[in-house]
């Protein structure tokens, strides 16, 4: 089983979010997602300052033979992106929860974080998907 961290919450599209302070979340794709994609070769990141809705496409992650959209796990504004990934997308494979983070988002409401799946629920969700 891939790594699922206790300090994050998860979306059904396999994004994770971790709160840095009351309203700022860091987001990326889960260890499970990077395993499914295999070697990641390219990342397209959003522009900072744009407002995004939960479930809207904000980034693209590509392997040699697959393309995966990354969706905003919550409503908010993109405040930063991990531009280092553009030259080193392999960081997402190596360290999806730290060096492989994709973007930071300022939440409209702190409650949105609580509405996402917790670690145990996400593990069950992944298992139920086979």
């Amino acid at each position: 089983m891939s790594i699922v961290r206790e300090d994050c919450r998860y979306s059904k599209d396999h994004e994770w979010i971790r709160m840095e302070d009351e309203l700022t979340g860091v987001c990326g794709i889960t260890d499970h997602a990077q395993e499914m994609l295999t070697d990641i070769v390219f990342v397209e990141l959003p522009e900072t300052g744009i407002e995004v809705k939960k479930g809207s496409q904000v980034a693209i992650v590509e392997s040699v033979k697959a393309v995966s959209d990354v969706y905003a796990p919550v409503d908010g504004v993109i405040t930063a992106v991990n531009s280092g990934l553009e030259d080193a997308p392999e960081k997402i494979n190596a360290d999806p929860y730290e060096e492989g983070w994709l973007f930071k988002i300022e939440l409209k409401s702190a409650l949105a974080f609580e509405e996402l799946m917790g670690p145990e629920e996400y593990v069950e969700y992944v298992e139920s998907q086979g």
Partner: protein
Amino acid sequence: MSVIFKHSKTGKNTVRLPELPADIAMEIPEMYLNDGLDLVDVSEVDIVRHYTRLSRMNFGVDTGMYPLGSCTMKYNPKINEDIASLPGFLNIHPLCGNDLSQGALRVMFELNQYLSEITGMARFSLAPAAGAHGELAGVMIIKKYFEMRGEKRTVILIPDSAHGTNPASVAMCGLTVREVPSTPEGDVDINALAGMLDSSVAAMMLTSPNTLGLFDRNILRISELLHKNGSLFYGDGANLNAVVGTLRMSDLGFDIIHVNLHKTFSTPHGGGGPGSGPVGVSAELEKFLPVPLIERDEDGYRLEQDSPDSIGRIHSFYGNFLIILRAYAYIRSLGGEGLRDVSRTAVLNANYCMSRLRDDFHLPVKRTCMHEFVLSDKDLPNGVTTNDIGKRLLDHGFHAPTVYFPLLIPGAMMIEPTETESMENLDAFIDVMKGIKKEIIENPDAVKNAPLTTPVKRVDAVTAARKPVLRWEE
């Protein structure tokens, strides 16, 4: 020495150009001119050795069996190459006028008739240069048909087993794709389809036989449902080889089809092209075909540009004539019975391979197949995958099957032996597959590390995509 540029050295090229008839002054002002080229400087011997060496690093139909599903890698008859090298075909200019190009126009006119006889469609345009180009023309026809009827239909239904060109062609016409699920038995899920039909549905695109190599048992029902809904039915003829001479695509209810001359009609694939993908339509849709059309009257054959409802022009000229010519020659050498034998032998060969491999590899859909069948890597021990099996086949002088397609079968291996392989060749392929199965159990590393005997070993596609190097730099 990997690329021609590595042979380059100033002064090696000793090519002699023809002499000008007189001393003629250049008329282009200096400001427009470059000051020299940086292409390459090599000798003729360098060129011959280099490209001969490259050719020997290639696998082709002439070097071995190519069981590549949905690609119909049949033998490409040599006489057709000779015919396409006749100077009267090679050198004819597309704008020389009807009177000087009667031979070329006749070939195109008659091939159009043959394709109508073979498929039952009223008329074809030979302009599409490839299957996807034919699809694009077909979707443009669908769009125009509804525009002229004043109906706003923007959705095209496509089964989940379809080739990627289907949805991509739809998107290029600004229409929306909706995916229709398949049943576990490999047919279109007819109940799901019925639920998706409404006044927004312009058409459904269906490959027949489908990409699992199966003939959809509900196809007449699908056609009926679509037509009752006022929608059109598009037939992707990529797999026509299974049914050529056995049935007519028009009898399946298709309003528009395309066929791939580089598959069913044996023209070579050329390492990726050129091909030809004529688009054929029912009588009602003839007026939408791309221009120019070829007509015949008492003066002979002529190009006709005047077709007010046409979708327009889609090619610089009239399509890939030299490919069209090869397909014409192929049909003339086989005749009606010969074509029927193509379909029957292709289906026999595929079912034979399937019957002998189904105990060794997982067969997801257990039905009589048409010209191809799909195995998968499900339940293989020791972590061996479809990719590994494909690579190991290369070591034994066989090309890999089509792998990881169709997408609805994880780890798919799609095998299409074609009609031109003898039973001995099929048996040799089957024996190698069975040998690989044995290796997977006893010595899986031999499979996982394959290929070992090819000009290069597995290549690093990941680095190629992460740090793209798309041109040579010294």
